[in-house]
């Protein structure tokens, strides 16, 4: 820990094998994900203060929701991996194949003519 580290719990507590209660996870996963970095809206650094919406840290989320920071970290990490099922990986492969084929057919040359690669509707993939 350094003097600049304002995280409220020590490394040993944070990195232990802490398992979040599944009921607590179900209750808070939506809120934690929305407050975290997962779904970003205007998160870019150096945007004007009135526009930028920096994601909250786990410590900030814990304070806001009155939860243990270890539970917040676990809820966030589990939810990030839990959001999409394994079928998403199959869709991912189809997406990349379609995108690569589209690029091969058009490529960046089309962009300079204002004629970009065709849109891909997942329903058509």
């Amino acid at each position, binding site marked *: 820990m350094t003097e600049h580290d304002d995280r409220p719990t020590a490394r040993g507590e944070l990195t232990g094998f802490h398992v979040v209660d599944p009921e607590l996870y179900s209750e808070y996963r939506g809120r934690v994900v929305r407050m975290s970095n997962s779904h970003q809206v205007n998160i870019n650094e150096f945007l004007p203060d009135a526009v930028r919406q920096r994601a909250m840290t786990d410590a900030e989320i814990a304070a806001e929701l009155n939860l243990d920071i270890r539970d917040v970290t676990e809820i966030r*990490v589990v939810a990030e991996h839990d959001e999409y099922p394994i079928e998403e990986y199959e869709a991912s492969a189809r997406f*990349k194949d379609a995108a690569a084929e589209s690029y091969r057919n058009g490529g960046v040359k089309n*962009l300079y003519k*204002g004629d*970009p690669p065709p849109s891909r509707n997942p329903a058509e993939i």
Partner: protein
Amino acid sequence: MTEEEPDWQTVKSELLEGVLKRGAMVARVGDPDLLADVAPGQRPSDLLPQVKSMIVLGGSAPRVGEWNSPRAEVLETVGTSDRMAAIGSALARQIEERLGYYAMNVPTSTDQDDKPFLDFTAAAVAAGAGSPSLAGPVLHPEHGFVYLTVILTSLPLPFDGPIEQPACPAPSCVEMYDQRGVTPCTDVCNIDDGGCLGGQIQDGLVIGRRYDANRCRDRVYHYWVPGYQAVLEKVLSEPDVERRKMMLYGSYFTRTMWSITYSNVSQGQCFECMRVCPVGAENRMLK
């Protein structure tokens, strides 16, 4: 007798010329204090309290042939961020051993809470190694997508500062947005159409950018740790021992295990928003 103050501009030039010779395509110096408003724990001073400057290196993008392969699987397996990390480590060693100042090549792996050690985007933008993009990666105006590495040091090097003209949106993207309401990246991977990216362009600037980090991670780490965990969950909940065997020895899990064991070379598994990006596109075409 007092020690003479070095010419920091000369020191900087020698260091940056060295890394450019070693293979970096971009080498800039940024002010760590510009990262004061990033999330606590991901600021330069959180990692190196003595930090006075950040050296940001970029390069090692996929080769032109890889960008142009009709098989998406090629780009899925050519992540080369480790080459930039190696150059950064060598520079940090040079600073400490030859100049006697603290230097740290920031780890590019994940921190204890599954987050990066540093806000690499903010560091790159602060140093002028590129500008933020609608797609997400920092884009260098000339080279487009590059892998990044950041060296924090107590050396008081002169800062380059952010670039004045953002690389994104490119003029052709503004033109396309005006015509169709999408850019190449938001067209190919649209957040409202099963993808990761969204946003508008107004007066030549990106506004209202939206990004689904979880979906993007599943595509970028398609055959890697997230996919491994997803299969493991299926396997552990499968009561039929023979079906468990099919899952574990099947092609998806086998491919995933190969990727994990090859480590870095298989981490960047989705480049589709960058493949269509016009920034640096002239570098992705040969005869």
